């Protein structure tokens, strides 16, 4: 493991006063006793782990979904979820990793492979027979809400094609699209670019890697570090030049800001510049609004849209900026969910042994959506995997808030998910 300093997560166990608040709010241990709770696997178990231990003493920490609710409610500042992530990495280092987790961690590679022949890939992955096979052979739950590859080209394809039409301006931002936008949901990227251009900004999309979060949450730290180093190499210079680096995937932005540097102990100058320059797109828009620079030419959106701020966004600790912007859109009723977690937690809910746990965790959120009544057309959430889980759990289509905003600007068709 990388070198340790007093500022890393390991030593934050010293902040724990054993008060049990984290365990009381942990959405996973609420639904299963297979997970003994954040205090137990986090600061408590950490005292029984050591550098160079002959074997990893852990097992149940693998049931931590990494949702970070524990960090949020902890009154003393223990980095519980990060302690757990590192313990999981140690299990991987000692016992190796199942092919499944290796695969699920390689979001970018999967995306690229499937995009070669997306229709075929979708068929291959989504037909009941192969899902059964995936379950039996690899332990990927047959019902789990796996994404589908974009059949209308990747985001990169669109970027190339749309280059001549895109805005040039002295005001520039950098866009970090993430793997989901690249391969599965390029329309999110299109909506984001349209909204940023609508504010008068030229959007730069530099070469970029997967943020590394799927690898981190599956315990493959070394591979994640390579990804992060690449991202720093590609983007730190923009950060240094003062360009905001804006993302639409809350898990990617969190990883660039905090997860990668903290979990991997990467505190080099480039990593720090990237950390400080990265924004969630709505946090950035909220900042524009505060400066009076946000375009407000909204058309009414007559929608009731239950909004769930995903755990990954809450871990940014910036409040719920999407909600604040959506509240400015006339006609839009964005009912705020207070559910703790949708359950999916990245790739957690894809795994056969965790699928039902993820669904049970998500039930609070699904219930909230059901309580909003018949008039709901879409649920809204900033994170892609959470949207897929929401669709799976509620049978309602789900949208990124940027899609709603782009629609309100008249730039986007919310139903067809395409620019107009």
């Amino acid at each position, binding site marked *: 493991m990388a070198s340790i300093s007093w500022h890393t997560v390991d030593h934050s166990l010293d902040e724990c006063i054993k008060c*049990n*608040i984290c365990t009381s709010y942990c959405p996973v241990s609420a639904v299963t*006793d297979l997970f003994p709770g954040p205090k137990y696997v986090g600061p408590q178990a950490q005292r029984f782990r050591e550098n160079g231990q002959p074997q990893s003493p852990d097992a149940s920490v693998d049931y931590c979904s990494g949702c970070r609710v524990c960090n*949020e409610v902890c*009154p003393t*500042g223990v980095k519980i979820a990060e302690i757990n992530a590192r313990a999981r990495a140690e299990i991987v280092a000692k016992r190796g990793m199942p092919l499944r987790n290796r695969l699920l961690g390689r979001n970018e590679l999967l995306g690229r492979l499937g995009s070669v022949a997306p229709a075929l890939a979708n068929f291959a992955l989504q037909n009941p027979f192969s899902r059964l096979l995936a379950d039996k052979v690899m332990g990927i739950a047959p019902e789990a809400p796996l994404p589908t590859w974009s059949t209308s080209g990747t985001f990169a394809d669109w970027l190339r094609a749309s280059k001549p039409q895109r805005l040039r301006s002295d005001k520039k931002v950098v866009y970090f699209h993430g793997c989901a936008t690249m391969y599965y949901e390029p329309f999110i990227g299109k909506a984001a670019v349209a909204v940023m251009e609508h504010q008068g900004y030229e959007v730069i999309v530099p070469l970029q890697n997967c943020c590394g979060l799927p690898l981190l949450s599956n315990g493959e730290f070394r591979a994640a570090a390579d990804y992060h180093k690449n991202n720093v190499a590609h983007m730190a210079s923009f950060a240094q030049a003062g360009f905001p680096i804006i993302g639409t995937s809350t898990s990617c932005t969190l990883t660039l800001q*905090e997860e990668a540097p903290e979990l991997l102990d990467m505190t080099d100058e480039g990593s720090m510049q990237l950390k400080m320059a990265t924004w969630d797109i709505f946090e950035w828009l*909220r900042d524009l609004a505060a400066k009076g620079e946000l375009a407000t030419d909204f058309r009414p959106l007559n929608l009731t849209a239950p909004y769930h701020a995903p755990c990954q966004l809450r871990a940014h600790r910036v*409040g719920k900026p999407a909600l*604040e912007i959506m509240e400015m859109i006339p006609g839009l009723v964005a009912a705020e969910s207070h559910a703790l977690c949708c359950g999916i937690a990245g790739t957690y809910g894809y795994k056969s042994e965790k699928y039902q746990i993820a669904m049970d965790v998500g039930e609070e959120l699904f219930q909230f959506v059901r309580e909003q009544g018949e008039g709901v057309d879409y649920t809204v959430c900033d994170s892609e995997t959470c949207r897929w889980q929401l669709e799976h759990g509620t049978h309602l289509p789900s949208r990124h808030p940027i899609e709603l905003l782009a629609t309100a600007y008249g730039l986007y068709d919310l139903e067809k998910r395409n620019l107009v």
Partner: protein
Amino acid sequence: MIDLIVIGAGLAGLTAALTAAEAGLRVKVVGKGLNALHWSAATLDLLGYTPPRRAPVREPWTTLPHLSLTHPYQIAGELRMRAALQRFLNWSQAGGLPYLPGAVEGENFMLPSPIGAMRPVYLAPYGQREGDLSSQQPLLIVGFDRMRDFYPHLLAEHLNKQGHSTRAVVLSSSLITQRSDANTVQLAAELERREHQIALGGALKSAVRPGERIGLPAILGLDEHTKTLEALAAAAGAPVFEIPTLPPSVPGLRLTTVLRSLLARRHVRVEIGMEVVGVQVEDGVVRWVETATSSRPLRHTASAFLLATGGVLGGGFQSDHQGRFWETVFDLPLNVPQDRSQWFRPLFLDAEGQPVFHGGVAVDNQFQPLDSKGGVMYRNLWAAGGLLAGTDPLQEHSLEGIALVSGAAAGEAAAAALTGGRQTNEAAPADIPAGASAAKTPQ
């Protein structure tokens, strides 16, 4: 635009926020994490003991004048105290979690503690009220075999020694859960399920003798607490009440949830996970506070600020091995012994308490923190709760009382100042110009 930012999401902060919101302010609460209610019995302890901690106080109101003049209750005065209690009763009703006084209005009453000592309380949640030990009704204490935080035989032995006829029964945990590992909150969730209520209700009915009341650990449901309690009482054919447990406190979690939902109804955002890491003060005024994020600090500007971060336990104070002891947000002056060797007495359960916990933030009668010369420190800053000087709420059994009374008083005072109700607190800044940093992110 936000009028008032409350720093701290404990009982004091939530009370202050709700009070100020009811007075018409736009309020936001930022808290580092969740609060001390999750550790306490969540009864409303007003004043159970005066130092030295020997005999319990029966009549808190007549005891008040004997408190030190720097005690928060003396500062608030009886009128504001009574008003705060009334607010709390209203909120608890509105939130569906009613709190009730004892048999003699205005006096403390005794409830059993989880080890069978008698706890003096002023108001108790409906679910605990039936445990009133001024009643001679015999008790049956019921626990569960795999529950690590409740020992009915021990409880019964101590109650018997104090003249309360008590029996104890330990039931199988499998009546209420199939989990191999469950804490009180998880058990409370299990008891909201009908099949567990039926199983437990049946067992209670066979265990209870005529005339007994049944005391159970405080795990009788979360949001569905009242229904759960009533279902069990009906099935058992006897009164049922809760006895608090070691943390996590289900009654405290319920109260926190109710207060947060009342705040949500008033459009007050309670942001948890936000730790204040920076402040800007100038010309005797707090301009902004900044909270830590995963990236740049987030700046919060407002016309007024209310500090309710708690004492040592809440995180309002910090200390180090060199004997430094400080208030964590504004570095307000604290009257704690300078020499670390003076912080403690030789006995853990010393009847006088530990000197280090007597220190805190001194405030004026509007609950504004004072500087070392006795003047108001910042014109737009108020303070409430565990960080106040002049009391050791754990020793006094006044934990919730201090939080509530000072929270309400400070919230009211801030609201009065901002709405022009107070002469001495002239022109609180309404709109603070942006600082030099480009990272300004108002809410």
